[in-house]
C-alpha cells in the first residue's frame, strides 16, 4: 500500500536534513563569498578575473580533460576487473579487493614516489613519452598529463571496481549461462549481458571517479608538478597560501558547475542510448 513507499523516507529524513544543514548551507554560503569583495560588497570581479586569465581557464580545461580521460580509462579497466572478481571464489575476491584498495591505504607521498621511480627518467617506462612524442624532456612521464593520468587511474580504480563489483555480485549467474547456451562466447556474454547489467554500478563508480579526479590535487602536484597545474590545486593555493578566499570560492563554484553539467550531460546521453 501507499505506506510501503513512504516508510524508507521516514527512516532517512533525519539524514537528509543533516546533509542539508551540515553541508549544503555552509558550502553554499562559502561559495557565495565568491561574489564578495574583501571589503564585503558584491562583485563579479572574481569571475571576470578567472575568465580573463589564460592560465586559469587553461588549467580548468586541463582538469576537465584529465578527469574525463581518467574516468573513461578507470571504467575500461574496472568493468572487466570487477567482472572477473565477481566470478572468483569469496576468498580470491576478498584478496583481490585488498590488493586493489592497497593504493588507497598507502600514504599519498609513498604512492607517488613509487610512480616517480617507475615512470621517472630512470624508470622502465621512461622512453614512452619520447616514443609517443608527448614530451621533449627526458623526465619520463613525470611532469606530463599522461603520467598524472596513470597515477590517478590507479587510485580511482578501486572506487569504480567496488561499486561495479557490488552490482555484478547480484547478477544471477544463470543469465550468463543462458547466454552461453545460446551461442554467445564469453566475450559476447560479457558485452551483451553482463556489462549492460553493470551500468548502474559503472555510473556510480564513474561519477565518484570523476568527482574525485577533478577535486584532487596532491597526486597531480607530486607527479605533474608546476607545469601541469590543475584547478583544484590552484584553488587550494589561492585559499591557503594567497589567502584570496573570494577568488578561491568563485573558482570552486565554477568547478562545481562544470562537474554537475558534465555529469548531467553524461546521464542524459547514456539514458538516450
Amino acid at each position, binding site marked *: 500500500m501507499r505506506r510501503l513507499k513512504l516508510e524508507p523516507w521516514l527512516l532517512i529524513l533525519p539524514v537528509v536534513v543533516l546533509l542539508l544543514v551540515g553541508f549544503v548551507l555552509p558550502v553554499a554560503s562559502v561559495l557565495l563569498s565568491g561574489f564578495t569583495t574583501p571589503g564585503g560588497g558584491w562583485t563579479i570581479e572574481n569571475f571576470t578575473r578567472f575568465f580573463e586569465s589564460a592560465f586559469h581557464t587553461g588549467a580548468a580545461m586541463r582538469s576537465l580533460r584529465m578527469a574525463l580521460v581518467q574516468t573513461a580509462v578507470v571504467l575500461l579497466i574496472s568493468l572487466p576487473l570487477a567482472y572477473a572478481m565477481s566470478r572468483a571464489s569469496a576468498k580470491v575476491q576478498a584478496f583481490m579487493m585488498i590488493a586493489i584498495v592497497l593504493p588507497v591505504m598507502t600514504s599519498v607521498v609513498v604512492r607517488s614516489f613509487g610512480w616517480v621511480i617507475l615512470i621517472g627518467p630512470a624508470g622502465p617506462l621512461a622512453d614512452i613519452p619520447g616514443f609517443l612524442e608527448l614530451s621533449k624532456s627526458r623526465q619520463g612521464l613525470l611532469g606530463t598529463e599522461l603520467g598524472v593520468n596513470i597515477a590517478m587511474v590507479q587510485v580511482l580504480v578501486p572506487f569504480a571496481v567496488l561499486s561495479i563489483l557490488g552490482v555484478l555480485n547480484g547478477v*544471477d549467474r*544463470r*543469465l550468463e*549461462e*543462458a*547466454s*552461453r*547456451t*545460446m*551461442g*554467445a*562466447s*564469453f566475450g*559476447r556474454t560479457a558485452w*551483451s*549481458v553482463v556489462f*549492460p*547489467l553493470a551500468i548502474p554500478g559503472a555510473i556510480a563508480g564513474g561519477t565518484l571517479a570523476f568527482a574525485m579526479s577533478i577535486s584532487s590535487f596532491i597526486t597531480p602536484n607530486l607527479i605533474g608538478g608546476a607545469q601541469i597545474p590543475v584547478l583544484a590545486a590552484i584553488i587550494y593555493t589561492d585559499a591557503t597560501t594567497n589567502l584570496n578566499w573570494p577568488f578561491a570560492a568563485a573558482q570552486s563554484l565554477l568547478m562545481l558547475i562544470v562537474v554537475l553539467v558534465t555529469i548531467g550531460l553524461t546521464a542524459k546521453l547514456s539514458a538516450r542510448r
Partner: protein
Amino acid sequence: MAELIISSVRKSFGETEVLKGIDISVPSGTFVSLLGASGCGKSTLLRCIAGLETTSGGSITVGGQDVTDLAPEKRGLSMMFQSYALFPHMTVLDNVRFPLRMQGKRYGNRAKQKELAKQALDQVRMGDFASRLPRELSGGQQQRVALARAIAGEPRVLLLDEPLSNLDARLREEMQVELIELQRVLGLTTVFVTHDQDEAMSLSDQVVLMRDGVVEQAGTPEELYRRPRTPFAADFLGAANLLDVSVEIDNSRATAVLAGGDTVPVRTSNSGAATLVLRQEKVRIGDPLSTDDSVVTATVVSRVFRGGEVQYLVEYQGAMLRVVANGESMLSAGDQVELSWSSSDALVLS
C-alpha cells in the same frame, strides 16, 4: 539434427553425489523426456549436457563430437532454464532475438532477426507482449518467453527444463502441439524435463525415468507403462496401487496371496514375495464384469471430485488404494465396496 550420447556421466556437489553414472542415448531428431521425482537430478543432468557444470566423470557426445570439455556456446544447443533466466534489461522481443543475434550470420540483419523472434513469440502466444520487460509479465508469460527464446535459435539439441509447469491445461496443450510440430519439422533432438508423467508419455518418443541420480528405466512411453521393471517405475508412470503379496505357483498357475488372505490369479513364473501392481483405472468398483476377475472387499476412506471422474481412497487390509469411478458416483466414507480387476491387468514384479 544431432545424436546425443551421454555415457556414465557423474556429478557431485561437494560430498553429495547427484548423478551416479548416467547412460542415455538420444537418436538424432527424437524427443526424449527426463522424468523423475523432485530432486532426482534432472536439472543437473541437463546442465551437464549444456556444459554448465563440470562433470565428475563420463563423457557427452553431440552429433558424433565429444563435447565433454567444450565451451557451452560451441555445443550448438539451447537450454531453457527451470527459473527462466530471462535477461532483465532486454525487452521480450530482444530476449527472444538474442540467440539469433549471437549467430548473426545465419539469421541475417536486424529486421530479419526481429521478424523471426516475433514468429517465435507468436508460437507461444506472446506476440502482444513483445515490447514489455520481463518483470512486467506474469509467471506463465515469462515461462513462455523463455520457451520462445530457447526455440528461436533452431539449435541442434534443445534442452527444456520443465518448460510448461506454469501453464494452464489449454495453453499447455497448445504449447505441446507447437513443440512437437517444431521438433518434427526441424528434426530437433529434444530433451524435455518434466515432473508430469502424462506429459512425458504423450509427447515423447522415449521416456527416461530417473531416480536418485540413476536411470531407473528408459524406453518408449508404452513400454514403460506396460512393462515397468520396478514398482517405482510402475507407480511413477501410472498412479498405481502397490500391494505386497506372496506368489505361489501350482501347476504353472500362479496365485498371489494378499494381506487379507485373499488369493487372486496372476501371470508370473516366479514364486515368492512380490509386488502386485494395480493401476487405479483398471480397478472397478462394484460387481465384477466377468467371473474370472479378482474380487476383494474394501472400505471407502475418502472421495475426491475431479470433474469427469471421482477418485476414492479405499482401505484394504491396512493398505490404501486409489480407485476411480465416474463423475456421478456418490459413495461416502465408511461404505463397503467390492473392488475387482481382470487378472490380465494385474502386474506382478518380484
